[in-house]
């Protein structure tokens, strides 16, 4: 398996089985590289500052291109998330009003009805990505915080299976899912 640094003379990630120009879209910059065809990304961060230093340029690039943003956050950190987006110059209120941005709490996504249901969550991901296309957005950049998986939540043991099953669904879409 090649590392991204093995791509000679380029910072393009080696997962680019389908080059960006062949997909008829602008390259997507993320974490110092250009995303290729595989866009399901699991990200680990040591601190919120490290996290947002990586995520904000990626998120902002999407908004500037008229793409949709769909974020899922810990409800306790919802205000902080909005503050971070605004600090990057993103007009969160306007983006929400126009439909370009949706922000959901864990309880309205992963933990609906008080527990994690992998089938319902897979259906939600598909619905979000399909609706972005229906609404005319060129892409949806989905960013989901997963720290709930470290807590003792009902259904959390199904998370590994869920992430694996997501790998059947996401290759049908060009939308990045973080």
């Amino acid at each position, binding site marked *: 398996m090649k*590392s991204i640094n093995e791509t000679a003379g380029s910072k393009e990630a*080696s997962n680019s089985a389908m080059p960006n120009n062949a997909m008829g879209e602008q390259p997507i910059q993320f*974490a110092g590289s250009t*995303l290729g065809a595989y*866009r399901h990304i*699991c990200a680990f961060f040591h601190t919120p500052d*490290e996290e947002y*230093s990586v995520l904000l340029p990626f998120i902002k690039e999407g908004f500037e291109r008229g793409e949709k943003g769909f974020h899922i956050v810990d409800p306790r950190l919802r205000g902080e998330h909005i503050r971070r987006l605004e600090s990057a110059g993103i007009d969160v209120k306007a983006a929400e009003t126009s439909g370009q941005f949706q922000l959901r709490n864990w309880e309205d996504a992963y933990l609906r009805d008080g527990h994690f249901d992998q089938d319902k969550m897979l259906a939600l991901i598909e619905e979000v990505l399909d609706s972005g296309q229906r609404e005319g957005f060129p892409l949806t950049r989905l960013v989901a915080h997963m720290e709930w998986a470290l807590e003792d939540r009902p259904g959390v043991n199904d998370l590994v299976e869920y992430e694996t099953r997501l790998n059947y669904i996401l290759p049908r879409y060009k939308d990045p899912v973080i």
Partner: protein
Amino acid sequence: MIIIGGILQENPFFVPPDEFLRELRAREATRSAASK
């Protein structure tokens, strides 16, 4: 793909979904049999 230390790279532990789910089912079956 995976990001660690702010760097995007291929997940070195990636297992194709078919294979991974087969392993998962096998582990569950073993656990379930052991608990009986």
